[in-house]
């Protein structure tokens, strides 16, 4: 009997006969924020994977056959992650022919996905060199396959599952907060964004998080003690800062910016348009005009201008309120108007000065 028919024929409250009792967790599942199910018939590999997961903070349950794995999943799932050996047999015990090929892991993965389509699953196939060599039906092609028995690879796969889970858990307010945050930072770096927008910022932040589990140079590790929104905000800020710094260092110009034409349409050497060695002189003018432009936006809004002046002068929130005699309500309203205007939106700009 295949696993898919097995799960359809076995009601959740009625365990299949002749099954072993569930293996005790190595740590209390309830006491840990993260849980994992390891379905692995090789005792050494099971210990190795369990230890790796334990080091990552997971509480673990183990099973040595697909039947036992499915039963544990039904009794204790969902888990943060389920690790399944591609070659795990359907049943454990003396009836197993150790030489016969066992490829039930994919079936178990599909059976679990049928119970919970969002369950994070990794299929381990250490007997293969590449994932492409692992035979599986089309519906299982999206399940990650781990062919390299290394802690780094496992950590990378776990990171993806945890990040995907965190993305699904974000509330509408979280998502919109991230968008506003990224939009503001892109607005702040101006030309240094080089045509990139808030979506690019968000995407790169996510990518750096994904590789952050094992690549400390290019990635940004997500410390699970930090809320996901806060982590992404930190990465976004860091990327925006790098974009700006790279832009300054390279002083990159668009081709259209480099081409110099006189009044008669004659093109001149682009060298004439390259910034001088006295960069601060150039930049001072740009910054000054930008500052004036920002203040000009709030010329008819005394409250916003005051708050803006306070920020420019390096004052903290309470100092700004104190300096300009603003109560909390007026301060927050002014901040809202500044954000709305800088993001070029009409809403929020109708209560000028109030």
């Amino acid at each position, binding site marked *: 009997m295949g696993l898919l028919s097995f799960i359809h024929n076995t009601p959740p409250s009625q365990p299949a006969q002749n099954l072993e009792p569930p293996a005790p967790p190595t740590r209390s599942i309830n006491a840990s924020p993260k849980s994992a199910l390891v379905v692995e018939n090789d005792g050494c590999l099971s210990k190795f994977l369990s230890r790796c997961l334990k080091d990552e903070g997971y509480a673990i349950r183990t099973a040595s056959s697909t039947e036992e794995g499915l039963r544990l999943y039904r009794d204790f799932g969902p888990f943060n992650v389920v690790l399944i050996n591609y070659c795990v047999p359907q049943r454990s015990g003396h009836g197993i022919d150790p030489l016969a090929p066992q490829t039930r892991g994919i079936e178990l993965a599909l059976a679990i996905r049928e119970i919970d389509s969002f369950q994070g699953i990794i299929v381990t196939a250490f007997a293969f060199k590449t994932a492409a060599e692992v035979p599986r039906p089309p519906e299982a092609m999206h399940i990650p396959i781990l062919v390299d028995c290394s802690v780094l690879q496992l950590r*990378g796969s776990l990171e993806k599952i945890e990040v995907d889970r965190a993305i699904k858990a974000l509330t509408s307010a979280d998502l919109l907060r991230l968008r506003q945050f990224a939009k503001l930072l892109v607005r702040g770096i101006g030309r240094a964004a080089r045509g990139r927008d808030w979506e690019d910022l968000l995407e790169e932040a996510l990518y750096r998080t994904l590789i952050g589990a094992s690549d400390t140079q290019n990635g940004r590790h997500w410390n699970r003690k930090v809320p996901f929104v806060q982590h992404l905000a930190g990465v976004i800020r860091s990327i925006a800062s790098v974009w700006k710094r790279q832009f300054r260092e390279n002083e990159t110009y668009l081709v259209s910016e480099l081409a110099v034409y006189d009044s008669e349409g004659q093109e001149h050497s682009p060298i004439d348009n390259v910034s001088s060695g006295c960069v601060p002189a150039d930049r001072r003018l740009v910054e000054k005009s930008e500052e004036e432009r920002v203040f000009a936006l709030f010329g008819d809004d005394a409250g916003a201008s005051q708050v803006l002046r306070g920020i420019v002068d390096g004052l903290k929130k309470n100092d700004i309120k104190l300096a300009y005699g603003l109560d909390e309500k007026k301060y927050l309203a002014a901040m809202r108007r500044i954000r709305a205007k800088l993001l070029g939106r009409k809403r929020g700009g109708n209560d000028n000065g109030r």
Partner: protein
Amino acid sequence: MIMADDKRREGILENVVGHLADSVLALPDESILAEAGEPGSDLYEDAEHVRLVLSEASQLLEDVTRRLSNMGHTINSNYWRRDHAGFHTKCLNCGSSVSFTMATREAQGGALNAPCSASNWHKIPRRASL
């Protein structure tokens, strides 16, 4: 004095924007929902669009890795080099390269044009060959 003034001005906009961005993070949920909606758009749709951006970014790397794997290439998915043009890596076996950019979501490079020339001897699964 001039240098100090330059540095101060240089940080003005970053300071203002940083301050405003921080204020967004500190806003209560109801305030951000009231403020973040674009005129004429649906808040829920806006929020789900952001989720889609994140989900697609998460999927992109996996898709590129799978395409490479299907062509027999082996890469260390945790080591992508980043520069202004995108992300780059090389097949560990044949050395052919691949790169992709987040902006266009397009992958390109020799590794995607031809199967791995050094992976034929791996056709037989390791366990089966024992």
